[in-house]
């Protein structure tokens, strides 16, 4: 059961988005978030939505994989929706009952917020759907490397992420083994109230942690034996290629973001 887990949610297919440099995609997501949070009028939302649909089409990832990312945040979305609906002050009153007051401004804010959240999740999950975990760590390392000078441990962060990815399946398997071993000796994980169940987890977590520390120790020795000495003077087998399509995509993102910002400024100074 635990054996066939996939790491992250990478959807392996050939698409222009998959072939792009991970750095482009990471930066693209940052620009995308800026766009979403500066959008305020319906037209701006429409523009962002068109952009989202276009990128999803280009990625060739089935839509159900993208919407799957929405499931865990349904509750948060409902919460913000309700909160925005009832807590927004101002605007024309549409509905009033007891202490609840719904205004047209409230409806507008609530809908915008929900749309913004949905687009945010869909857009960002596209990053992990189209970029393998290793490419992602490589991209993060390279993007953070200019900040090394001010003390950001970019190589160490990437190394930690990649080791974590490497050991997730191993520790999952170990958890599975421990659960079976404890169950075969009469441990009960399925009944009782919440507190009892949490308590039943302790005999799983203790051996799991002990094992993880032992592994970490052995891995550290093995890494040292292979001349690991931090990021200094290190080369890399994986080559990140920043191609013309990356440049184009990044330009498009910058232009779009700049356009959004310009619209916002024009509105603020009262031209629009």
């Amino acid at each position, binding site marked *: 059961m635990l054996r066939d887990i996939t*790491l992250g949610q990478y959807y392996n297919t050939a698409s222009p988005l998959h072939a792009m440099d991970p750095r482009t995609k990471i930066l693209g997501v940052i620009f995308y978030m800026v766009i979403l949070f500066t959008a305020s009028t319906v037209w701006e939302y429409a523009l962002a939505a068109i952009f989202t649909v276009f990128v999803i089409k280009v990625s060739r990832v089935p839509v159900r994989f993208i919407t799957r990312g929405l499931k865990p945040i349904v509750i948060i979305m409902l919460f913000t929706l309700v909160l925005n609906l009832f807590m927004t002050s101002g605007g024309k009153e549409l509905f009033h009952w007891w202490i609840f007051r719904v205004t047209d401004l409230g409806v507008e804010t609530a809908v915008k917020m929900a749309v913004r959240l949905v687009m945010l999740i869909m857009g960002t999950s596209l990053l992990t759907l189209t970029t393998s*975990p*290793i490419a992602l760590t490589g991209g993060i390392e390279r993007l953070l490397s200019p900040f090394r000078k001010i003390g950001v441990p970019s190589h160490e962060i990437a190394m930690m992420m*990649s*080791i974590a*990815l*490497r050991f997730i*399946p*191993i520790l999952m*398997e170990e958890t599975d083994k421990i659960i079976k071993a404890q169950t075969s000796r009469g441990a009960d994980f399925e009944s009782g109230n919440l507190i009892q169940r949490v308590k039943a987890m302790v005999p799983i977590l203790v051996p799991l942690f002990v094992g993880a520390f032992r*592994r970490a120790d*052995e*891995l550290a*020795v*093995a*890494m*040292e*034996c*292979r*001349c*690991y*000495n931090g990021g200094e*003077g*290190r*080369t*890399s*087998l*994986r*080559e990140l290629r920043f191609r013309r399509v990356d440049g184009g995509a990044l330009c498009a993102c910058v232009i779009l973001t700049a356009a959004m910002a310009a619209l916002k400024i024009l509105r603020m100074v009262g031209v629009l």
Partner: protein
Amino acid sequence: MSIIKAENLSFSYESEGAEVKVFENLNIDIDEGEFVAVLGHNGSGKSTFAKHLNAILTPKSGRVTVCGIDTADESRLFELRKNVGMVFQNPDNQIVATVVEEDVAFGLENLGVPREEMRRRVDEALKVVRMYDYRTYAPHLLSGGQKQRVAIAGILAMEPRCIVLDEPTAMLDPIGRDEVMETVRRLNREKGITIVLITHYMDEAVKADRCIVMDRGKIVMDDRPASIFPKVEEMRALGLDVPQATELVWELKRRGLNIETGALRSAGAIESILKMTRDQL
């Protein structure tokens, strides 16, 4: 030409305030190109000895020189570790990367080898251990024997002169064990890489050119496998087994049959038995 030289090597550690001596005044000399198996019961010091060969541990007193480098010389640590590769028992705990070829490249990345050169050496190492077709796999999808071969490839890519394997087959099934042993033997024969194999599987030790038997921090035997294994009683007194074939002919002899002892492999045992039956006819 000796590649590994331990002179008057002593090592001890502290445990609950008391000093535990692992070994004292150990002298070992291993020639370049040799395939040496180090045998011994738990606590004989064989693993601790292995850890001295690439300076995971450094001597309390005495000296270890490997490839002409004193292991206590910290300024030449990376040069030493580049030349002396180490393969450990648990294949999972020595694979660093999430893709086979990236793991093989790990040592080269650390050494700062240029990309084209790295690509060439990684591919070659993977071909030598016959894992080239699996180069884009995630390590957790491989069998134990395959993972251990990937670990060997990672060492091999650094082009070492010597490989130390610390019970590399202890966690493997019989098929994985054969795969690893076949690879190790080939590296020794074809590439002339010096092999130090720490093991407690006697059927593996038989494949070595030379066996060093350790007991409580001392070398008690140091000879060709054909000379040490027929000493079944001595080996048993040290808490060690002998290969099954050796044991079979030895038992037959003990039960009063007029058989030639000393066979190390099943083929040899069959020959001895046939010879015995022929002689009786």
